[in-house]
């Protein structure tokens, strides 16, 4: 096996890893604020890509107009989801929450199929398709867009969570929801915020990956699950651990697909997921915590 080839797999793994990281952070933000694993997270990724396509075709808008519109529309979807499905739930047991977010995810996927059909669509790259050579391997400009946008979003996230009042309030909710409520934080509003942030982040992830992988109504399932895997590797952190988790997953998957078998590419993520859940449910970097009853 040549070094060039391995470098090539690693580089393309990093860009899909960045996408998993963004989706994974979306999972973590909602989980930390609410204790819910949002099974519909992947659908917002799909919505990002599909809505961009929709605005491109419907408004004949340039891509720089279509993207913010798509992010805004997906975020609206996230708000509606929280308001209509999560908040009115009478018995919010974990199983009911799993079932309702799965129901929501199927519904969103089905509506997307109804509106836009089952075809796979291409989205133009942001800045051409001229390959760039890096030490024997080549990458596309879109790969650089993906890594760059991911970095920017992570930086914004960091700023939000550590340097703004509402970000700090959200962290307080993550530590202890009851205590946060006692010091006057509106916990329900923070729940809504968490859905807004993660649906927007999911949509962005879906948009920047779309020119490479194409979009269809059902791309959200796999992307969502792999994002969750990234979050598990990172111990459900909404920071750097999940980013590292996503990158590890992306690179392992890409190397596995290249060196072992491309048919089992998707299985790799799930085997990692199961092994981690069995042996290190606190994440790769976390310390074991005792469970509160």
């Amino acid at each position, binding site marked *: 096996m040549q070094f060039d080839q391995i470098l090539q797999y690693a580089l393309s793994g990093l860009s899909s890893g960045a996408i998993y990281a963004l989706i994974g952070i979306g999972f973590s933000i909602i989980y930390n604020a609410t204790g819910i*694993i949002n099974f519909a997270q992947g659908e917002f990724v799909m919505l990002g890509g599909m809505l961009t396509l929709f605005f491109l075709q419907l408004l004949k808008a340039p891509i720089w107009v279509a993207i913010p519109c798509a992010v805004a529309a997906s975020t609206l979807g996230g708000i509606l989801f929280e308001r209509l499905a999560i908040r009115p739930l009478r018995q919010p047991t974990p199983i009911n929450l799993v079932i309702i977010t799965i*129901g*929501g995810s*199927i519904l969103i996927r089905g509506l997307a199929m109804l509106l836009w059909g089952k075809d796979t669509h291409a989205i133009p790259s942001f800045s051409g398709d001229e390959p760039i050579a890096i030490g024997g391997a080549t990458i596309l400009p879109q790969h650089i867009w993906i890594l760059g946008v991911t970095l920017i979003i992570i930086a914004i996230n960091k700023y939000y969570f550590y340097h703004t009042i509402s970000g700090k309030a959200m962290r307080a909710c993550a530590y202890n929801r009851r205590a946060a409520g006692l010091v006057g934080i509106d916990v329900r509003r923070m729940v809504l915020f968490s859905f807004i942030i993660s649906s927007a982040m999911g949509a962005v992830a879906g948009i920047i990956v779309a020119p490479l992988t194409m979009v269809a109504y059902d791309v959200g399932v796999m992307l969502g699950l792999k994002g969750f895997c990234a979050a598990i590797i990172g111990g459900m952190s909404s920071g750097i651990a999940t980013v590292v988790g996503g990158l590890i997953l992306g690179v392992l998957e890409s190397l596995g697909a290249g060196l072992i078998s491309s*048919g089992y590419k998707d299985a790799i993520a*799930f085997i990692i997921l*199961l092994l981690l859940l069995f042996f290190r449910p606190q994440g790769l970097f976390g310390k074991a915590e005792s469970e509160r009853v």
Partner: protein
Amino acid sequence: MKKELFKFGAFALFIMIMPLAFKGGYLMNVLIFVGINTMLSIALNLLLGYAGQISLGHAGFFGLGAYFSGVLTATYGWNAWVAMPLAAAVVGIMAYLIGFPILKLKGHYLAMATLGLGIIIYIVFNETVDLTGGPSGLSGIPNLAIGGITFDSDVKNYYLVWSFALATILFSLNLANSRIGRALRAVHDSEVAARVVGVNARLLKVQIFAVSALLSSLAGSLYAHTMTFISPASFGFNFSIELLTMVVIGGLGSIYGSFLGAALLTLLPEFLRAAHDYDIIIYGALLMVMVMFMPGGLVRGIPELYRKLLKMKRGSDHA
């Protein structure tokens, strides 16, 4: 218990005379699927409704049963009656072994882990082309036969599948009313409390997981022998969700509810022919509506609704 047996007898009689109403015909084929889906949703309900442990990977166990039976009989020429229990035993043991690490997880984590397990099984069906035929499927699976009778028509298969389904119902009713059933419900309400009063919660959860997988595998074998053709598409994530929908609609922790959910969800697409591709939207909407407005499922929700309507009517009469 006597009342319970009487109810079961009436139900079994109803099932047995059903074919007379249809005299063969296309609907018979659909009713065979109702039988298979009843077995599957009861299997999932034992785990989800009684023990309170979710699984989003049951289509995988169903598929394992189907492929074990299919490959052993179609490729290697085994007797189907040997292959079927062997498949069930192997799948049961597999579930038992994987049950220990997987059922340590709770709630959302358990859901994700079982989902991942289901998808891994699905990928294996697709990729082991030499064994399973891959995405294009496995054909030439023989029908079951006893003595001189081969189960090769819809009516014969109906009675075959429903004998198994009725046996599953009887077994599950017994289980639910036994010491084990009570222990399961205790684990459901509070695992810690159950452990404190001496229930080995961990072992019990693993055991019920194995029983549930074993029943799903049996349903899979029956599916393979009645259809004579199987492909991975029938055993994917969507089918796991469909099973979940059946259990939730019928009612968690109700055996007859599982039948009701299976019957509704199997018959519904037949009446919605035009909306063929879109039945998945209906599942999604049903799941959400049920959890929000009727968390007890139809079995408990409808009597409750009826009482409420009655009350409202009385209220307006007094006014």
